[in-house]
């Protein structure tokens, strides 16, 4: 049993009257791509501050790469690569100057780290003399990632690396992370985007400072306590309205074109539901009704956990 690269045990942190972290515990195995998933205010950034030794927990303990976050801060700080939540590079220095600076602060050079950052760097290399402030959002994120990697860290910590960046850049970024993961580098990445969470090896769902669940993305869906259905129909507003009003409804949330509907009756089957809805909703004026059984996704489970944290199987 190899030692975990990160081990967090019952960490709590308060700021005044706000509880940022509430008895958070989890472990990250070597070579894992671990996702921390949750909205703003979930405590993701505070958790990263604890792991990067920037803040000390009020209670509990944590170790990173075998070092204690309170006692051995310098050992951790020289070994991790960190990408903080906002753009944290020097806008008036060029791409190359930023990279060179962070390399030299860690006692190395761009050349030494080039092998590791090459797949990412080649995308921004044409702009190496451009001032970092003049880059587009997606380019900035890639530069920040290079700066975090150039010193060949043993662990990569990314706090919401794709916030505010468009869908294409987000995809590209996560493809780069997948490549890094192939090399065996453990990565902890926080994201509010549930679709990105699906690309991780394991994820921790967080809300209001608490960890709601930890599991593989595919397995998270199995935590959904009832059968889940995707319902389509026109007009959309009316469909949602009627489903909400349906007497056996347990949950009904819009998901793009469809509505994810779960029934309180635990053994409900799709054919039966389809019949019922055709009758009830049809008379209300809903047409083109389509009902399908689907697997629950991360977002479904997240919302379920938000509403009833303890009702979900651990």
């Amino acid at each position, binding site marked *: 049993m190899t030692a975990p690269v990160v081990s967090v045990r019952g960490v709590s942190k308060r700021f005044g009257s706000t509880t940022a972290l509430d008895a958070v515990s989890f472990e990250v195995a070597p070579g894992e791509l671990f996702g921390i998933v949750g909205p703003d205010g979930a405590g993701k950034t505070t958790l990263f501050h604890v792991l990067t030794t920037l803040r000390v927990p009020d209670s509990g303990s944590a170790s990173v790469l075998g070092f204690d976050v309170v006692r051995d801060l*310098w050992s951790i*700080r020289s070994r991790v690569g960190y990408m*903080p939540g906002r753009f*944290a*590079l020097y806008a008036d220095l060029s791409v190359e100057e930023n990279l060179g600076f962070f390399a*030299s*602060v860690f*006692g190395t050079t761009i050349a030494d780290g080039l092998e590791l950052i090459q797949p990412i760097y080649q995308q921004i290399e044409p702009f190496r003399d451009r001032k970092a402030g003049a880059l587009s959002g997606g380019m900035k994120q890639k530069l920040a990632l290079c700066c975090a990697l150039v010193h060949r860290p043993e662990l990569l910590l990314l706090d919401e690396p794709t916030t505010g960046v468009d869908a294409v850049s987000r995809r590209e970024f996560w493809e780069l992370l997948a490549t890094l993961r192939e090399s065996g580098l453990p990565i902890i990445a926080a994201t509010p985007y549930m679709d990105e969470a699906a690309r991780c090896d394991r994820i921790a769902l967080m809300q209001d400072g608490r960890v709601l669940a930890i599991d593989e993305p595919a397995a998270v869906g199995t935590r959904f306590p009832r059968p889940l259905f995707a319902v389509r129909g026109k007009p959309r507003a009316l469909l949602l309205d009627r489903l909400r009003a349906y007497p056996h409804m347990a949950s009904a949330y819009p998901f793009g074109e469809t509505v994810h509907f779960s029934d309180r009756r635990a053994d409900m089957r799709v054919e039966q539901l389809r019949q019922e809805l055709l009758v009830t909703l049809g008379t209300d004026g809903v047409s083109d009704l389509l009902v399908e059984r689907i697997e629950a996704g991360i977002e479904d489970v997240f919302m379920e956990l938000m509403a009833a944290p303890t009702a979900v199987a651990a």
Partner: protein
Amino acid sequence: MNTTPTHRTAPSSWRTLGAFMGKEVRHLLRDRQTLLILLLLPLAQLLLFGFAVRTDIRAVRVLVVAPEPDATTSALQDRFAHSGRFELLPTTSSIDSLDVLMRRGMVDVAVVLEPGLASALRSGGTPQVLVVADGSDPNTGTTMRTYATAVVRDWQQSLGAAPASVRIEPRLRMRFNPTLESVNLFVPGLIALILTMVTSLMTAISLAREKERGTFELLLVSPLRPWQIIVGKVLPYLGLAMANVITVLLAARMVFDVPMRGSAVLLLSSATLFSLVGLALGVLIAAVTSSQLAAMLAALGGTMLPNVMLSGLIFPVASMPAPMQVVSHLVPARWFIEIARGIMLKGSGLELLWPPLTILAAMLLVLLTLAIRRTSPRLA
């Protein structure tokens, strides 16, 4: 791809510091606007003030009050008229208007001759001459009085009279420039002001900006120690401060003939010491404030303002109310101005200036300790 990092030794402190300083110098040089202001503003101030306050050259307006004008009084007037330093105003015979004329700033010096001067002279007595000058002007007032007195004495001698008592009566007069500092006294104060601006103000802002941007967070999660971050930020500004001092001194020398009677090395060393005090203050301010704006306001209020108002730059310390004089002891610029004036104008050396230098060194020690204590390697 190789996953295990190649075994590397921890980066040497100096190399890391050097890398950090290199970045800081880049920031400094790229911020052209601020750089230009910091380098040119002091020169502009010097030139403006210097040319506006050249009281030494202006001709002194002298009024001779002679109740009984005769050949002897004319002789006195002629002496003033031909002395080259004085501008002789039309003589009056009555002393009544003197007060008004002086208060209105139309007369700098008045020479009042007693009635019966001629008869006093003929009888071998001592003529009484009253010299009235603006005494609130410590420099030019003295100069004027000395010149006027010299002319009067010469005149008395030529009359064959024994050197008479020349009574000098100082009068107060409001002038637009209440301090009546000459350029010589202004330059040390200007240097103190520039140094404070470049050291305390700019360092505080630079550190606060790093925190506000979020790059500070990133810098902490690296082998960089807080002392390296501070030293790396502080040294480029020390260099800039020294560059400023040298430019101002050169300009003052070349344009206004401001003297350097003492050791230039001692002056620059004192300037360095004073700069370090300012830098320590800047670091302390940045450590206790949470935004650039707060840092700037704290630096302006806590360093620039006292340095301008309480250091003797504009208002002489001796003429401040007693409580302010006490507070003035805590203002570093007060001591530096004393040192700089001593070196430049009086040629004082270490033997005379060690007290204020020791005080500055003590201030540095205290501030440095506080600054280091307050700078944490963590966020909170």
